[in-house]
């Protein structure tokens, strides 16, 4: 099996994540789409670490995981804060700046 298969799988997952961000309206599901994209990027890092025989790819994937964890904490806190004031988790309802 060619290792390109992993890269194709990662591309598919990234595409589905991006599609989720574009199509879904629930802010939490949109956020899960972002997580899926980060995971797909991690799979590419791990695969290339193996292709090039260099552990640095795995280290970068590790840092991506840490930053993603921090991002989830802040993002979900923002969603909770918005939900408290607007009583909605839909991204369409956050339109205060619309003229």
């Amino acid at each position: 099996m060619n290792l390109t298969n992993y890269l194709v799988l990662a591309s598919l997952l990234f595409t589905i994540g991006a599609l989720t961000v574009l199509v879904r309206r629930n802010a939490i599901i949109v956020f899960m789409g972002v997580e899926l994209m980060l995971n797909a990027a991690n799979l590419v890092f791990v695969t290339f670490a193996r292709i090039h025989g260099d552990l640095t790819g795995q280290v970068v994937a590790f840092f991506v995981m840490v930053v993603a964890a921090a991002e989830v904490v802040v993002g979900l806190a923002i969603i909770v804060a918005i939900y408290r004031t607007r009583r909605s988790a839909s991204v369409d309802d956050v339109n205060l700046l619309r003229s």
Partner: protein
Amino acid sequence: MNGILAAAGVLTDLAETGRTSTGEEVLFWFLAPVMVLAALGLVFARRAVYAAMSIAVVMVSLAVLYVAQEAPFLGIVQVIVYTGAVMMLFLFVLMLVGVDSADSFTDALAGQRWIAALLGIGLGAVLISVVLTARGMQPIGLAADNAEANPVGVARIIFGDYVFTLEVVGILLVTAAVGAIVLTHRQRLVRRVGQKERADARVAGGGSLTPLPAPGVYARSNAMDVAALGADGRPLEQSVSRVLRVRGQERSIAEVHAQIGDVPATTPAITGEEQVR
């Protein structure tokens, strides 16, 4: 921990120095469709909890793929951080923010959904075509780097070349934790109403300080709906539950009197008007 690493080692043996073995091929072709289907569940699931479950499936499968790809440390970190912490956080917030609120499927902009789907498919096509141009790569494999166990090799790089990045990431984590606390913190606008404030308000408001009288207990009737008699023999209105009074289900003393009307004449009937001895 040793057991996990040993199990990881078995899976890692699937990949013998960069060449994929049959075992890994079977694993990949089993997991890849599962992952893609679960990821599609994220796009199409009506309920947010189903979406969270399907993304958890993707994350666990990714952990297995990491282990098969000679990254057992990342595989375990993936399980602990993503499925253990991140997905739990997602589920907590889902439960907090209305798990029953169905996603609206009405477009804010006309046709936005179809344009988005088209762009998404285009992005996928571009990515996959770029990846496919890289066919014929000869993987080197990580056998040399993983000679001393994978976590050791990763730790050498993290605490060697990337130690400054690690410290910056530590600051980022602390900042994120403080930021989450600040964002979800609620400033109290009015003074907290505790037990003392409630008691003071009750005394200042006048009225009865004691608990309300219990409804009357009569042998021949269900006493919950009949008022008790006060010291002066009059029925006490507030002894009957407010719910029953609002529904109009309370009964007067006179009705109870009618039911116990055939008692011996020597026994004084309760009329509500007579004096209690």
